[in-house]
């Protein structure tokens, strides 16, 4: 197991216990989970949807989904905190991928794209040096590493990364695929 997780250190067990109570219809447990996680979940969503109001909408929907689906959480298939983050990330990704239908597209400015790049750099820089993911990302070609970080942290699609890095789509897809395979080999 990975011993270099950032705080909150009790994230895993605490969240799992709360989910168990939420599955039984305990609203206080949901409120406690919100109290503990909402601030960081808003930040995670905002890295992807960029706009504050959309990030809050994502987190609102995510907590309703957590309430609805808490009984489906299976501790043998991952951590509770990971499950919650996945719900937030998937909702955020759906929102940006479905942009057209939800009138999300405001015409993203170059400045905003620049900010998103800075955010991914900051996330990478903040990974603890000894963390396995950090160690393995360090070993990747910078261009593969950047592509992967833009996808995961900023929620960019292949096409957006290609535009951002000014590289052909096929090349970017190959970088990401090779990169993410190399990461898994490295972390195994």
């Amino acid at each position, binding site marked *: 197991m990975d011993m270099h997780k950032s705080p909150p250190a009790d994230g895993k067990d605490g969240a799992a216990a709360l989910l168990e109570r939420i599955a039984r219809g305990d609203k206080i447990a*949901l409120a406690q989970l919100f109290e503990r996680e909402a601030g*960081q979940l808003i930040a995670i969503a905002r890295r992807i949807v960029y706009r504050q109001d959309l990030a809050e909408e994502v987190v609102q929907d995510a907590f*309703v989904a957590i309430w609805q689906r808490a*009984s489906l959480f299976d501790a043998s298939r991952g951590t509770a905190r990971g499950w919650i983050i996945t719900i937030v990330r998937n909702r955020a990704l759906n929102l940006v991928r*479905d942009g057209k239908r939800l*009138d999300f597209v405001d015409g993203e400015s170059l400045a905003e794209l620049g900010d998103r790049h800075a955010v991914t750099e900051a996330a990478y820089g903040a990974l603890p040096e000894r963390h396995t993911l950090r160690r393995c990302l360090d070993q990747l070609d910078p261009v593969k590493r950047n592509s992967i970080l833009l996808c995961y942290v900023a929620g960019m*699609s292949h096409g957006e990364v290609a535009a951002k890095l000014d590289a052909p789509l096929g090349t970017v897809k190959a970088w990401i695929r090779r990169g993410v395979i190399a990461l898994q080999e490295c972390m195994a």
Partner: protein
Amino acid sequence: MSRSEDWQGLAGGYVLGVLEGAELAQAERLIGADPEFAGMVAELADRFNALDDTAPPEPVPEGLWSAIEGRLDATVQLTTPGVVPSRVSRLTERRKLPMPMVPALRWGLMAASLVLAAGLGYATAFVTQGRPEPVVVAVLLGDGASPGAIVEAYADDSVRLVPLDPLSAPEGQILQVWTLPDAETGPVSLGTFSQGGQLRLAGPDLPTPQQDQLYEITLEPAPGSPTGRPTGPIVLKGFAKAPLL
């Protein structure tokens, strides 16, 4: 290329959130069907969570919690066979399932026979044990990463919709449920709703639902598609399968 590399590429793409179309569907199918693949995805996602942990928490706006709390009573909690709800919570649930999601209805081409079941009668009907089995079941997928709703279609033309993710239409718009019995008939509206929660629609008189029949939900101008056919973007879509009995 080895299967293991294929799987690593697929699991990696899934965790990064870049899969679409057939690859996304394949990854989702494998996650449901293959514990080894599901394990790869879970392990990788867990590693990548370290990047999420670096996000400095932001201030939580006042009112966000109360907005969530205000939606809980209208949201039915899903249960799994392993989680047996107590009688008390079951009764509470029954009281909760109700009319607020009864939408305005636009009568389309086949509208004369289209009835949206409403009120206590239908609300209690679908929590009653021993109801008939659906003829087909469809898992509706968005083009994001997860299934968004389950549709159960019954021999009596009724359809039960169980959202897996909260669904709600922006103001002035409505979510409309459709099926395609066959190409000749074209898409037929089963009913509309404005926000999530389970609901039962008494669809129009149609042939018995078939394996591979298309079901979809589109976003339409309220109170429903002006043409009687889907005009707006597809929110969720899936093909029916007959359940094993």
